[in-house]
């Protein structure tokens, strides 16, 4: 049996004899797994929600106090989701806001819009549960529960504004 030193000495000769080129370099990043892609989609969805809250607060500063806590909780959701992503080679956690709708023409309309966004977010998260690992499913479920409570808060706010 050849020693390691002998093998290392002959290996260039072997490569030439077999006509081998250098190993091919991977030119494209691997495709993320479905679970990773779903997680990346969840990050984008949360970024969109944060944007919506910022836009509503900027448009109706009188709502700031009422919306601050909800916005802070969405920021916490986003941070936790981003922290859960292990960035695959060549793929980065998205930072782009992909949905920038116009804000409702009145405070009342803006609150209805936020409430609809929260309800939509809960529905989407419920659809992400199956196929996720148990810890990830628990994170999605917890965020969905938080966003369900936001719907209740926004309902109460909307009723207060309507009563004025």
């Amino acid at each position: 049996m050849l020693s390691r030193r002998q093998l290392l000495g002959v290996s260039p000769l072997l490569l030439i004899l077999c006509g081998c080129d250098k190993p091919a370099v991977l030119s494209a990043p691997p495709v993320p797994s479905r679970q990773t892609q779903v997680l990346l989609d969840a990050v984008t969805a949360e970024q969109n929600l944060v944007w919506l809250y910022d836009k509503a607060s900027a448009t109706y500063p009188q709502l700031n106090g009422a919306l601050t806590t909800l916005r802070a909780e969405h920021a916490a959701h986003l941070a936790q989701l981003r922290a859960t992503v292990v960035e695959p080679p060549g793929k980065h956690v998205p930072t782009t806001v992909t949905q920038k709708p116009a804000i409702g023409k009145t405070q009342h309309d803006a609150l209805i819009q936020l409430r609809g966004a929260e309800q939509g977010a809960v529905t989407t998260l419920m659809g992400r549960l199956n196929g996720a690992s148990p810890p990830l499913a628990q994170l999605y479920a917890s965020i969905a529960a938080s966003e369900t409570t936001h719907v209740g808060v926004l309902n109460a706010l909307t009723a207060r504004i309507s009563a004025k």
Partner: protein
Amino acid sequence: MSSANEAIVTALQGALAAEHAAVYGFGVVGSMLSGAGETNARNAWLAHQSQRDNLEAMLTGLGATPVAASPAYSLPFPVTNAQSAEHLATTIEDGLTRAYLGVVAVNDATLRTFGARMMQTCANRATNWSGTTVAFPGMPS
């Protein structure tokens, strides 16, 4: 019983134990409240009895013996007035949210959805009692 079924039974037994405690606890809560508060406590007490019965049926259907309620429960803090009663109500619902988080971890699509929906129900009740929201209901802080 397979290990997957064992995990399901364990998670459901955890939720059932929490519902047993909730039925006891809301009896205490209701005794300290009046008017709308008392009505809310009674409605919660009835809802938790219904959820308890549902979990018992689920466990029996899986061939397991549902865990029994304790004869009594020690309260996490003294409940002497309306404010402490409402705090107990919030604490009970937070505990249930945690228990149903355990159901979300099982590898069964229907039960996972059930667990998540129950988390939403309990988190909403906790917010109604406390007047506050939290970022991660049921998760350890």
